[in-house]
Structures are given as structure tokens and as C-alpha cells.
């Protein structure tokens, strides 16, 4: 009798007032809201929105329409094209690896530690995101060029020159692309629930174990997304590369440079090269979406089978947390789900 009374008395406040419930809106309610607003969207927003879509898509459509489909195979089999493509793939992959090795630790430091000048450092590190790449290229020349602040010593001591070499391409691309990875990973670390790290500590996990088994898996999707973003940015790098590394076929002429050059001499070749870049980017994008988009995850989750109804606030909080942060495990379930 008393228990019943207590239940009806204590139930409601627990559901509304506790932090677990306030973590995020209930998925069902959220999607309901979204549907509602979609119905009410006024033409004032529809019209400019549609124009934006046209503006963004038309150039791509134009590219597809004007592409020299018949001569495409011939154009793409040319040595210079293959050279540029391979160089691009190689350098952008190398600069992505560099970005991972140096960028992820930096992201962790920025997200998890506080020191004097933290805010300033964070702003400076992400400066290349907004800096015109050409300016980046010029700055790199001033520092790492043959007569640069560091470059001069590099050459006289080690006989090592960066500008106008393939390594220079990698440096230029890393300079421009690494901030994308840093921002992505740092954001995920900031928004990831640090109480999971507390939980790991109460289970006897030291710092390194926690980092390895909890922190990193929880932000794995962000690391993957940041890596892809970083790679794509490096692949498309133009300004810093041409300024710092020049435009030598075979050593520093990457795809974007080749496209630009071809446009002046052989427009068809330029279109063909652009198509290749477009195809590569679309492939990356599709691969990303299939793996990391919440929608697909929902399917995975449903496939995993949930026999019991998700119990209220907690289940909801857990679910949204996972949507934001589930890591390597997802690759796992995707792999097992694929063949079926």
C-alpha cells in the first residue's frame, strides 16, 4: 500500500528533474518536432533554399554533361594524368598520416588540459582553416624556404630542402589540412562524456588503459570523419601547394594543379581530371555516410534486436550518447550485417 503510494508520488519528478533525462530530447519527440516544422516551412525559406541547391548542384551537372565521355578513357590513360593522380593520392595520404600522428595528441591536449594561453593557442592552431592557402604557402616559404628562418639551417646542416619538392607538397597539404582533423577530434573529445573516464577509473583503469580502451573508442567516429575530411582537403589543396612546392609534373604537380594547367591548353583533359577528383570525393563521402550516419546506425541497432522496450530516460540518454559517440564497435556490426 505504502509502496504504491510512493511510486505514484516519486515517479514523475524523477523523470523530469534528473540530469539523465535532460541529456537530450527524446528521439521520438525530436523527430516529431522536425516533421511538424517541415509542414510549416514558409516559401520565404523554400525559395532561397532551392536556389542554393541549384547553385551548388548545377556546376556538377554541367561537368557531367560536358564531359568528353567518348574520349575519356584515352584522356585518362595519358601518363601525365596517371602521374598527377598517383602523386595526389600519395601526398594527401602522407599528409593525413602526419596529421593523425601530430594532430590527435594535440587535440587531446587542447580538450583535456588547461594551461596559460590555451585559448590563444587553440585559435592559432585552427588559423589555417580560415587563412587563404596562398598566404599559408607564402608563410611556409618564409620559414622553410631555402633562405627561410628554418629552411636555411635545414639546407646548410642536412642538405635538405623542402620547397619545390614532393616533400614540400606534403608539408603544404599538412599545413592546410591538419586543422580539420584537430577541430573534429577536439570537438568530439569536448562533447564526449568524461564521466565514462571516471567510471573506468573506479574500475581500476589507469590513465593509459582508460585512454586506450574508453576515450579513443568513444571518439573513434570523429577521428574517422576528421581523417576523411583532412584527406579530402589535402587532395584538393591548390594555393599553398603551388606557392610553396611549385608546379613540376611528376614531383609537385598534383591533380588540382594539373586541372588548372590543362584548362588553359586542353579543356577536355581538365574536365576529365575534374571528373576523377569528383568521383574520388563522392566515393569518400558515400563511404562515410554509410558508416557514420545516425540513420544507418539506427538500422544496425534494430537489427541487433531490442526485445525489451527502451526504458525511459536512461535508455534514451544511452542511445543518444551512442549515436554521438559509438566507435569501432560499429564497424564490427556493419561487418557482420553486410553478408546477410
Amino acid at each position, binding site marked *: 500500500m505504502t509502496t504504491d503510494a510512493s511510486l*505514484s508520488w*516519486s515517479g514523475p519528478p*524523477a523523470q523530469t528533474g534528473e*540530469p539523465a533525462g535532460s541529456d537530450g530530447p527524446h528521439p521520438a519527440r525530436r523527430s516529431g518536432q522536425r516533421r511538424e516544422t517541415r509542414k510549416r516551412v514558409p516559401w520565404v525559406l523554400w525559395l532561397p533554399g532551392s536556389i542554393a541547391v541549384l547553385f551548388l548542384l548545377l556546376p556538377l551537372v554541367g561537368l557531367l554533361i560536358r564531359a568528353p565521355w567518348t574520349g575519356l578513357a584515352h584522356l585518362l590513360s595519358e601518363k601525365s594524368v596517371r602521374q598527377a593522380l598517383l602523386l595526389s593520392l600519395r601526398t594527401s595520404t602522407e599528409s593525413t598520416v602526419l596529421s593523425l600522428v601530430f594532430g590527435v595528441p594535440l587535440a587531446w591536449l587542447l580538450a583535456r588540459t588547461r594551461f596559460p594561453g590555451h585559448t590563444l593557442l587553440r585559435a592559432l592552431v585552427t588559423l589555417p582553416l580560415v587563412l587563404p592557402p596562398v598566404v599559408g604557402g607564402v608563410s611556409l616559404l618564409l620559414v622553410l624556404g631555402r633562405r627561410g628562418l628554418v629552411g636555411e639551417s635545414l639546407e646548410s646542416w642536412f642538405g635538405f630542402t623542402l620547397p619545390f619538392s614532393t616533400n614540400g607538397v606534403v608539408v603544404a597539404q599538412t599545413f592546410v589540412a591538419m586543422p580539420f582533423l584537430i577541430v573534429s577530434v577536439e570537438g568530439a573529445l569536448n562533447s564526449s562524456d568524461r564521466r565514462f573516464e571516471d567510471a573506468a577509473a*573506479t574500475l581500476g583503469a589507469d590513465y593509459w588503459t582508460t585512454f586506450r580502451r574508453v576515450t579513443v573508442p*568513444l571518439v573513434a567516429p570523429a577521428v574517422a570523419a576528421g581523417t576523411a575530411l583532412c584527406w579530402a582537403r589535402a587532395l584538393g589543396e591548390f594555393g599553398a601547394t603551388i606557392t610553396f612546392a611549385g608546379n613540376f609534373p611528376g614531383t609537385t604537380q598534383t591533380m588540382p594543379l594539373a586541372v588548372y594547367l590543362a584548362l588553359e591548353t586542353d579543356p577536355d583533359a581538365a574536365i576529365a581530371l575534374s571528373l576523377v577528383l569528383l568521383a574520388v570525393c563522392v566515393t569518400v563521402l558515400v563511404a562515410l555516410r554509410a558508416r557514420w550516419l545516425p540513420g544507418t546506425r539506427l538500422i544496425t541497432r534494430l537489427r541487433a534486436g531490442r526485445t525489451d522496450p527502451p526504458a525511459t530516460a536512461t535508455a534514451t540518454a544511452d542511445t543518444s550518447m551512442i549515436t554521438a559517440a559509438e566507435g569501432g564497435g560499429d564497424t564490427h556490426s556493419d561487418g557482420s550485417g553486410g553478408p546477410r
Partner: protein
Amino acid sequence: MSTARPEANAPTDPTRPPTPGEAGAAAGGADATGGVGEGDGLDARIVVRRGTFLLDVEVRVARGEVVAVLGRSGAGKSTLLRALAGLLPLDAGRITLAGQVLDDPRERRFVPCEERPVGVVFQDYLLFPHLRARDNVAFGLRSRLRQGRRGSRTEAESWLTRFGVGDLADRRPAALSGGQAQRVALARALVTRPRLLLLDEPLSALDTSTRTEVRTFLRGVLPTLSAPVLIVTHDPMDAEVLADRTIALAGGHQIAPAV
């Protein structure tokens, strides 16, 4: 002995960690030094200052006793819990557990969280979302007791079975209901055989129907533990049903000895 045959202990005395019991028997002199709980329970005076807020409270929990700390949000319950778990150092006071000093600022002694024999069930359980239930439970065995992967999984499964969720070992936390997650979280906290179990609002994240079920479950399990149990809650009814004794907190201080 305990690690060699975990299942052998299971049916008769499911959740009772043998080591504390033996330690308690060995430290029989504990009775000479003081009253109940001095030797093998929790004895703490906790003083933590956070800005203008001051938590100053004394907590004593004997072995096998379940004590609830009752208070509204902002009363200092979470701070108390974090201090006991080792996630927050004391500003003054002293924490002694089973005869071991865990925190004493005057003696500059502080045992970090990962080295304390304290199990915690968090408010929303904080089961690692990327690990299956089995690996969530095995986590502590691997990191705290340094057990191998296979052995820790087997032991984790036996704990899950003990709590009636053995068939869910392969699930990830997202595919567990609130009540199931609670059981997995309890198994995870107990598997390393802690000498103190802390429960943070164990029922607040559940809906009404699940609450009854989980409350019944906890009421059955908690008294069988030999370790002292401390429950933090805002709900007087939870405190009354689950605990032997209640400490009421308000504004960082104990307000009245409970009945």
C-alpha cells in the same frame, strides 16, 4: 582460492567477497580499537570546499550495513560520493576503509581512484557504450585484477548469470532496458570484489514500473553483500526501503539523525 573457483562460491554466498571477510577475521583486533565498522567498514569525515559551498559530513558504514544518504540536488550528495570514490580529494577530514586510510590531507595521503577498493554504480550506469555487457563487466577484472581476457569473460558471465541477465552478455548497453542496465552495472561494480559499494541514485533513471522491479532486486541483493553499501538518493522511499539507516543531507551538512 577465490579466483581459482569463482563459481564454487557462487551458489551459497553469491556476492560475498571472501577476501574482506578473511581480512576482517585476521584483523580481529579491530574490535579492540573501536566499535562497529571501525576495522572493516567505512569510517569517514568528509570536508570538501567548492567555491562557497562547503560539504562537511561524517559517514560510518559497518560491514554488511546499507546506509542511505538522502538529500535534494545541491545538498552535496554527488560531492560526497566522488570524494569516497577518489575522484575528488578531501580538503580536510579522513577516509578510512577496512583499516586502510584512503584520504587524509593532513598526512598528505591520497589513494587515487583506480587504486581504491571501491565499486560505484553510477546514476545512469555509464556502461561503456562500445563494449558488450560481458566486456563491461570484465573491464574491472582486466584492469584492476589484471586477469586475462578469456578468464575475465568467463567470470563476468557468471556474474551476469547470477544477476539474471546472463542471456544478455552479448548485448551492447544501447540494447538493454533500464532495469537490465542496472543489473549489468551492479555486476560490473561488484566483480572486482570492492570493500565499499557506492550507488548513485540507483532508481532515479527508471520509469515507474521498472522502479518496482529494480527496487525489489536491490532489496534482495544489497543485504547479502559483506561490503558496506552507501546509497545516495533524493527519494525518501528508496532510502527507507533499501537502507538500514539514513543520513539526511542539506546544504552540505547532516541535518538530523535518521530514525
